[in-house]
């Protein structure tokens, strides 16, 4: 009996950790591309909110979740172009540009939501992605409910981890991205279009962040709420750094954070004698500790946050 309760609890915890890690992992994957090319996009939070809104709006008006995802990706890319323009073309300070983008996204998503749906007594809702029941796999004891009882977006995200790692490490484009992030002048002299590669990377980051936002609004929840991203965009930036710009490590890092978040809720619920304020801070404390431990090893791309100009030395 005792072991039964423990198993059920563990299954619930691990499944929860996976669910909570996805909205961090998705934007983190895109941010790996962005940062590898030398751009720090702190505007993820704002892009995610816009993606969450677009995903919800797209689904609500077309009644098709895939159109919702498409709308989220397009919005994410469009919104990230602002970041691209500011940091690449105008060569503005990236920290400030990113922060501004977050503030813009927060306000704009709230405003547009009100414009689209007006003031309603209860929020508009959609039918979100249902968990997939995979024959055989979902029935495996323990592993089934932990790994094979999620919605399609979770599996897509895992697939994207592999794709991202492959693109970055094994393709010419990945090499160009890394070259641009390490030494844009050398890359330029080899005929790589630095501006283009950086724009593409920022757009990839925007697409992933849009997806991450949409996961919250139409993948996990079924409505849009202003500020629903709730800091996950910033956690994603932290995840990228402590994953040292590697998609697989980002998966681990996101799981760690998602796990801490899922764990603290369960600890609160069973009533451990720790004030809940401390438990709520647990994922953030963990983030600090992990960041401290990996910071010695972190090797930033050499051209990190440095705008490139051919005419300047």
């Amino acid at each position, binding site marked *: 009996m005792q072991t039964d309760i423990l198993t059920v609890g563990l299954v619930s915890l691990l499944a929860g950790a996976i*669910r909570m890690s996805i909205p961090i992992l998705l934007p983190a994957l895109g941010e790996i591309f962005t940062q590898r090319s030398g751009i720090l996009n702190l505007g993820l939070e704002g892009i995610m909110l816009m993606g969450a809104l677009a995903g919800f709006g797209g689904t609500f008006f077309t009644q098709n979740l895939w159109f919702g995802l498409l709308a989220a990706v397009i919005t994410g890319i469009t919104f990230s172009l602002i970041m691209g323009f500011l940091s690449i073309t105008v060569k503005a300070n990236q920290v400030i540009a990113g922060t501004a983008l977050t503030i813009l996204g927060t306000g704009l998503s709230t405003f547009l939501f009100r414009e689209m749906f007006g003031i309603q007594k209860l*929020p508009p809702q959609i039918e979100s992605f249902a968990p997939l029941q995979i024959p055989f796999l979902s029935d495996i004891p323990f592993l089934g409910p932990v790994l094979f009882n999620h919605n399609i977006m979770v599996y897509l995200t895992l697939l994207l981890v592999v794709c991202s790692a492959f693109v970055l490490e094994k393709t010419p484009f990945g090499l160009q991205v890394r070259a641009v992030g390490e030494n844009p002048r050398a890359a330029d002299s080899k005929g790589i279009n630095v501006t283009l590669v950086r724009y593409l990377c920022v757009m990839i980051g925007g697409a992933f962040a849009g997806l991450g936002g949409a996961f919250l609004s139409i993948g996990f*929840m079924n409505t849009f709420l202003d500020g629903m991203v709730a800091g996950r965009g910033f956690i994603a930036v932290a995840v990228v750094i402590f994953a040292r710009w590697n998609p697989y490590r980002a998966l681990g890092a996101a799981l760690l954070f998602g796990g801490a978040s*899922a764990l603290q809720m*369960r600890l*609160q619920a069973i009533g451990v004698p720790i004030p809940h304020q401390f438990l709520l801070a647990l994922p953030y404390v963990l983030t600090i500790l992990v960041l401290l431990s990996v910071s010695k090893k972190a090797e930033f791309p050499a051209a990190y946050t440095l705008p490139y100009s051919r005419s300047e030395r």
Partner: protein
Amino acid sequence: MKKKFSLLCIVMLVISLLVTGCGGSSAPASKSTDASKDSGVNPLKVALILPGKVDDVSWNQAMYEGMKSLEKDYAGKIKVTYSENVYEVANIEPALRDFATQGFDLIMGHGFQFQEPIIKVAAEFPNTKFALGTGYKTAANTCLYDVQLEDGGYLMGTLAGLMTKTNKLGVVGGADAVEIYRGHEAFKFAAKKVNPSIQIQELYTGDWRDAAKAKEGAMSMYDAGADVIWHSGDGIGLGAVDAAKEKKKFVLGNVADQNVLVPDYVLSGIIYNWTPVIKQMIDDILNNNFTNRTDKKYMLTVANGGVTVAPFHGLDSQVPAEVKAKLEAVKKDFIDNKIEMPKFAK
């Protein structure tokens, strides 16, 4: 590089804490409505300052709708101006002073964070009346209003305690604010009273907007065997409702009748109706009864019809008659002032 790294980490952590801490965006929007059409007398000018948005499905919206409905009844007698998203303490004092200099008669601050600014500004404008939503400080020209959420929590605890089959309940809240805390404690108290062997899981998400977190929390409670969960409100409540839908278990709502969201699993809930309370407050002002009132508190209670239980809708047949009878008995006891529960205070 290391220096840059640590700087970056600090900046990010601070920002993420800020963002999670205060989900509200900072774009105050004002709307004024014209309730006074043809009456010759000057209507009472009321300013309602809300910390959130009027469509937050919760705290702010309930007040907004209560005020809207009173505006209709009191057309010509009052004129209300709404101001949304005044969340940060730094913005509150200027907003209060602004409305006071514009000659508003009653200025309402709908949240605990308005307490200190109201006390301060009220002293500077002795002829203006102020109302503070939740808190404990008053002055001659100010009053308090609040939800007696322990009434609601008590009713929900009774219902949940009688309806559970697994003897496990859950309660999910946003931030650990005073009235939410009282509601939760009363919920647990009442559930244990009707069902002494009950186990209750409790969870605060620490904010009002992170519905995904609340959903995950509620799912973990259902996984651990709970079969009825009450959520105490705001955006996060939608997460609990969505968890009920996914896990096919009962959930009890708060603030508004949320049955339409998931008709099969939203069993009931608490509905706030602010109209009787603000009506009383405005009547007192119109009759010159405001400043000389000894009891400075206007409470939303079961007795005055401010806190009601949502109907069971399609789930009516699943609620045994004796549960309904018990719930009615508790409601009647509230009206007759016969409910005994400890004072829940922190």
